């Protein structure tokens, strides 16, 4: 069994993946909006 990760390691991973998810989701979302001719 692995030892539990220190709190700060979990926090660093949380920040890293939060930013990556925010950016990726926004770019994918607006690409789909543009490609499907949006709801303009």
């Amino acid at each position: 069994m692995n030892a539990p990760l220190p709190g700060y390691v979990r926090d660093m991973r949380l920040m890293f993946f939060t930013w990556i998810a925010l950016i990726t989701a926004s770019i994918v979302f607006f690409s789909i909006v543009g490609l499907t001719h949006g709801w303009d």
Partner: protein
Amino acid sequence: MAGTERAGRVRRFASENSLSLFFLAIFLAALVGQAIAGHKLYNQEQLAHDAEPIGFWAYVTSSNFGNAVMENWQSEYLQFLLFMLATVWLLQRGSPESKPIGEEGAESDRKQRVGGWAGPEAPQWARVRGIRNWVYSNSLLVVMAVIFLGSWFAQSVTGWTDFNSEQRAHGKATVSWLSYVGSARFWESTLQNWQSEFLAVGSFAVLAIYLRQRGSPESKPVGAPHKTTGTER
């Protein structure tokens, strides 16, 4: 007792991540502000053209809003990735943003602590040789480039859709995506963002030769000589 422990953990989290939390908060606040102002402007233009105003949700999920957001994003990521790449080889004497004179290039394995020079806590892919080492050695650049290209693509398709809906509203012919990415409209909106980013980065590197911000890692120490290049202290 558990409450005090929890409060301590939250305080530590907020303090140790304050830089990214601060920027996340002001990013979201500015984005919401942009959406509110953009929605109002969009509807003013709709009314001026005798068209129906649209709801807030319809606006924030529209190509018009997406285009305004993405054209700024792509230029920011281009700026950071170019700055990171250029500072590997290019220098500015006296700037804290430059490496010291004579140290340009990708540097030795020893200095970069890869392969046999990797320490016990080095990331796994820094210890191995071959493709994984190359990928990890350039991973920040690769991810920034993917974000730049992704947001530039999103700018192009949202701009294309927005342009075509304007064309339709004026009873004019629509264009293909390829014609749009070759259009003056696409390049004007792209280059107006690029020029401001390049100016800001170039001037920042030069201003920091003679000017200081006490306490900032982006500045030389206040008492450092003007001729000091790089961040050695």
